[in-house]
């Protein structure tokens, strides 16, 4: 077999025109047998979700895509709307929890008078905040009045000053804090 004979065999096997020759016949009979004997393709579905998932997992292992499942993306306006609604809901909840108060400063007997729709709740909150700031405060209730008494340290620690400022309560000149909280008339 010469090289040119082999190339003739190759061309005939590939179905390209060649002159009739032993190499041509040898290739043609093989070509016909191969093409006739090709088993019919096993039918496979065009779309197969399991197959696609397997392909994507392979792509992830190859570092082509993120392995983590992707969270659904929200369009920007929708996301902004949801955030606004959440903000509004939180604001409403805060307003509900914060009883409206009125503070009367510097009355004649040195007591700070506060009017609140829920005196017990406000007393508890101020007590908690003062105690968290290190003040030994005492709460009481008498004749529908909720009161707080405390001796404030001097000089006044900043965190205690912040608690008082939060509730609009003036710093007592003598260091004795007396608060009375009542319901509105």
């Amino acid at each position, binding site marked *: *077999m010469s*090289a040119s004979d*082999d*190339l003739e*065999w*190759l061309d005939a*096997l*590939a*179905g*390209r025109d060649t002159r009739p020759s*032993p*190499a041509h*016949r*040898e290739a*043609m*009979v*093989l*070509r016909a*047998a*191969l*093409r*006739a*004997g*090709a*088993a019919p*393709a*096993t*039918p*496979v579905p*065009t*779309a*197969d979700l399991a*197959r*696609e998932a*397997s*392909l*994507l997992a*392979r*792509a992830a292992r*190859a570092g*082509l*895509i993120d392995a983590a499942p992707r969270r659904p993306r929200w369009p920007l306006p929708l996301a902004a709307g949801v955030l606004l609604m959440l903000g509004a809901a939180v604001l409403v909840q805060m307003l509900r929890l914060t009883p409206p108060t009125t503070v009367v400063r510097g009355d004649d007997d040195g007591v700070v008078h506060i009017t609140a729709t829920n005196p017990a709740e406000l007393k508890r909150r101020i007590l908690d905040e003062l105690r968290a700031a290190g003040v030994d405060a005492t709460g009481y209730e008498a004749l529908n009045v909720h009161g707080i008494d405390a001796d404030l340290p001097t000089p006044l620690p900043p965190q205690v000053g912040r608690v008082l400022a939060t509730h609009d309560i003036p710093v007592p000149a003598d260091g004795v804090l007396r608060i009375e909280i009542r319901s509105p008339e």
Partner: protein
Amino acid sequence: MRACREGGTAIEQALRRLDREFFAVLFARARRIIRDADAARDLVQDTFIKVWQRCATYQGTSELLPWIEAILRHGVLDALRRSGREVAFDEDDELNARLAAHVAELSQQDIATPDDELRRTQVAECFQKCWEKFEAAAPSHAAVISWIAADGLSHEEIAELLDRSPGATREFISQCRKRARVHLAEWYSLAFGKDAP
């Protein structure tokens, strides 16, 4: 392929489209050589990954399927080589030389055209039996021969597939022919000449 080049979030969609458009045809091609269905599926999916990795080299002027098929063929050949099934071929072996000479002599005759169904079936069954032995002994050579017959591969395309020089490719093609003569000798005897049953 445009999505493939653009990358980013388009990749998943691109891979899904590749799978839907080309899996069936590539799977059929792979199964002709790799009989195991799972191994053939793995090869096709590996091909899709390589398509993505090499998409920058796709010229866009040629058809997409032949380009993908070429990548699949590379993968199939690699798998066959890794399997280590290739049996050494000694063309100076007396029996091999005699069989090759016999087929060369047969090919001087006309191709037999069996005129009844029984004969045709016998010849076809003999071919299948011989071909399976050929595939078992020389899987790479058998695969290349089947691709030449099915896809009309040229000498240059075979050289590219094998990553060999033109001279080495000519030698490989010559080896394909010699091995086919030896392994298919029994069938060649039926397929040629007056002695055909």
